[in-house]
């Protein structure tokens, strides 16, 4: 589907992103419909996920992280839903595409840097010289700090992308072995069974690590070490 010179067709990626957004929104909103003091099952899910992310934000950023909490919560649920949707048979993992993860990481990086500049002005460049380093080491320390700062969006995006890609590739490779081995196919079957469990853990863990690192970068920008 073309719009002028641009391809705007509604891809697999877009479909599953829409599914993820609708599912996450539905679970949280419908779960909190009957907000009773003693939560039922869906309300517990919504409350637990809220508490999980809220504690994470409070532990890493402190009290002024509260204004960024909606963004962090959205980010966490988006990445988590993206990872988990890929575990459903015939599901599509939109987080296994480098362009998706890189866009998210780039937006976070630019946003955090802008927040740092807005809050601290040009003093933000003092971030690159950690307090307590002797001034003689500055020509060595500042480039190293700068390089590691600019490697943040790269590492953030590649970590999520490579984890999702490698996990699914490994599962597909071993699933192929099941069919080709015939009778002895139960050996790769057990392995794929265990690997699926590991993939579920990795899906949750990578969503958590993505969010926690975003909170830590935000903390760096707000508090300058």
């Amino acid at each position: 589907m073309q719009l002028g010179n641009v391809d705007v067709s509604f891809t697999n990626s877009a479909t599953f992103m829409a599914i993820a957004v609708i599912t996450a929104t539905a679970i949280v909103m419908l779960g909190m419909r009957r907000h009773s003091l003693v939560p039922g099952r869906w309300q517990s899910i919504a409350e637990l996920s809220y508490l999980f992310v809220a504690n994470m934000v409070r532990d890493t950023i402190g009290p002024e992280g509260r204004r960024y909490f909606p963004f962090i919560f959205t980010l966490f649920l988006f990445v988590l839903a993206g990872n988990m949707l890929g575990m459903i048979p015939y599901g599509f993992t939109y987080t296994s595409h480098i362009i998706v993860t890189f866009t998210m990481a780039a937006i976070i990086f630019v946003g955090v840097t802008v927040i740092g500049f807005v809050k601290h002005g040009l003093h933000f460049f003092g971030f690159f010289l950690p307090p307590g380093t002797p001034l003689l080491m500055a020509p060595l320390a500042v480039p190293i700090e700068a390089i590691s700062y600019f490697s943040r969006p790269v590492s953030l995006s590649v970590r999520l992308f490579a984890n999702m890609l490698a996990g699914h590739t490994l599962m597909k490779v071993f699933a192929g072995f099941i069919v080709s081995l015939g009778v002895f196919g139960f050996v790769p079957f057990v392995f794929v069974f265990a690997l699926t469990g590991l993939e579920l853990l990795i899906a949750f863990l990578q969503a958590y690590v993505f969010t926690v690192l975003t909170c830590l970068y935000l903390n760096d920008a707000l508090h300058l070490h």
Partner: protein
Amino acid sequence: MELAAAKMIGAGLAAIGVIGAGIGIGAIFASFIQAVGRNPAAAGAVTQMTWIGFALVEAIALYALVIAFMIMFL
């Protein structure tokens, strides 16, 4: 030598990099088990950092894998 052969050799060499991640993950969980063994009450506090550390180390293994894939297919 031909390009295809060189690509395969390059990918194989790049995959050696995951050794570091293996040692790293072992080190992380070894210190986690030691810490919980010495002080079981600290289990809650160190568990969170253990999983963050594990994900960061695993990322290095996957960087090596990405480079291997890039050599093989790009």
